């Protein structure tokens, strides 16, 4: 059993949250650059050039990449042999508060969806907890903008709708979203599980580095097929037309009921932010950042 201090969780969440808002993951920048190279439509090329330039300015650390610094989604993977000293949930929220103040992030969270009073500090985070093997704590912080989140959809299909039904629903979601979610978008698709689990799967799919296909071939092929159909819509960067409507599609699936085929499509904008760190126990207290997406 290793002990992780809540103070380390606070610091890690703060750093990851600030970094996510200023430094796009390399896989996202690479995907935008690759789409720019391949883009055939002039107005779309101009928009993609501006998007790449924006990423470079944000990286200097003065202005976040987007003014919507999001509602902070935090994914906690806690090893069963790790113990957090103090309150883990409170520590995550405190990290979000400090990121908001120290990172000059926008205060974008209201305490009540109907009375709509701003909490003033971006807390609370949307936290998802997962118990995993081992004695470490992995934190992934993904600030999520509302423009794209508002364009997301969920449906309970019939099993007879099958693979085609999944593709049609995903493509239709992007078509209906049009220019609203700041295309080029990243599309997370959840399939299976239950009404609640499928939405979480779609969100989790957005955390996969762009360009990394699903490990199972038939799901990797499904991702390519959905991506190709989305990019035939012609919506293009900023909605001004073009080849590049989506940068990537990622699918996650889970077992489901004999009578169900839940599908959720979570849209992310091109400012597809996420950063991760792994915290080890007391004798190795410094976070080691994930290599692939260190910005």
């Amino acid at each position, binding site marked *: 059993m290793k002990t992780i201090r809540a103070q380390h969780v606070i610091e890690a969440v703060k750093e990851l949250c600030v970094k996510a808002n200023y430094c796009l993951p390399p896989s996202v920048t690479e995907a935008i650059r690759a789409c720019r190279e391949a883009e*055939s*439509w002039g*107005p*779309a090329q101009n*928009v993609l050039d*501006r*998007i790449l*330039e*924006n990423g470079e*300015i*944000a990286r200097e650390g*003065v*202005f*976040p*990449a*987007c*003014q*919507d*610094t999001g509602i902070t989604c935090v994914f906690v993977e806690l090893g069963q042999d790790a113990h957090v000293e103090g309150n883990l949930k409170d520590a995550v929220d405190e990290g979000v508060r400090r990121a908001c103040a120290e990172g*000059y*992030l*926008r*205060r*974008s969270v209201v305490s009540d969806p109907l009375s*709509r009073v*701003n909490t*003033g500090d971006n807390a609370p985070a949307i936290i998802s907890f997962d118990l995993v093997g081992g004695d470490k704590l992995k934190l992934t912080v993904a600030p999520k903008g*509302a*423009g794209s989140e*508002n364009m997301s959809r969920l449906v309970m299909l019939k099993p007879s709708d099958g693979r085609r039904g999944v593709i049609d629903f995903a493509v239709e979601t992007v078509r209906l979203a*049009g*220019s*609203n*979610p*700041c295309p080029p978008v990243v599309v997370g698709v959840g399939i299976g599980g239950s009404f609640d689990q499928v939405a979480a799967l779609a969100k989790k799919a957005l955390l996969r580095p762009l360009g990394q296909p699903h490990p199972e071939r038939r799901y990797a092929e499904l991702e390519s097929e959905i991506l190709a159909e989305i990019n035939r*819509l*012609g*919506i*293009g*960067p*900023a*909605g*001004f*037309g*073009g080849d590049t409507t989506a940068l990537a599609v990622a699918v996650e699936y889970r077992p489901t009921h004999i009578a169900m085929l839940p599908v959720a499509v979570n849209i992310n*904008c*091109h*400012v597809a932010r996420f950063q991760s760190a792994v915290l080890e126990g007391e004798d190795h207290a410094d976070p080691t950042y994930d290599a692939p997406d260190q910005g």
Partner: protein
Amino acid sequence: MPIRLMTPLTKDKLSALRAGDEVLLSGTVYTARDAAHKRISELLEKGEEPPFDLKDAVIYYVGPSPARPGEACGAFGPTTSGRMDAYAPALLERGLSAMIGKGERAQSVVESIAKNGAVYFGAIGGIAAINARCVAAKETVAFPDLDSEAVCRVEVCDMPLTVVIDSAGNDYYRLGVERYLRQRKVQISEVPED
């Protein structure tokens, strides 16, 4: 080449603009999004004055991030305009000449734009750091309790925009995609068959 425009945007400056034109806007814009629009429309319904003169004015749908010390403004990109559709026609009737945002507008807004000879500019969503560098000065003029949603008077210089809905009611979100798809069809048909 982009068209340089300077506020106030009197209607005569807008009539020549066409959907798809690229514009560099300089001068004064007012920030207002969801909560500010609700309050402004409540004032108008009560017969009271809005917090700034709407005649020939430009409203930017934006809630900036906080400015760092020494900077005029934080990140300054557009929010989704559709959420302001319910309020826009009443403001256009009172002389508002332009709105800046992103995303499609309701038919009622397109009709009001055409009727009043106004325009809707699209800003590229998510290039908020570039737009921040276009801000010379920013000052809160109403509803400071709304924090990032307060109404601010902002002096901008060469802010890059695209005419999305022109004063004749043409919509570039539709036209741009149509032009692209037409061109792609031509390209596909030109590929020789083996």
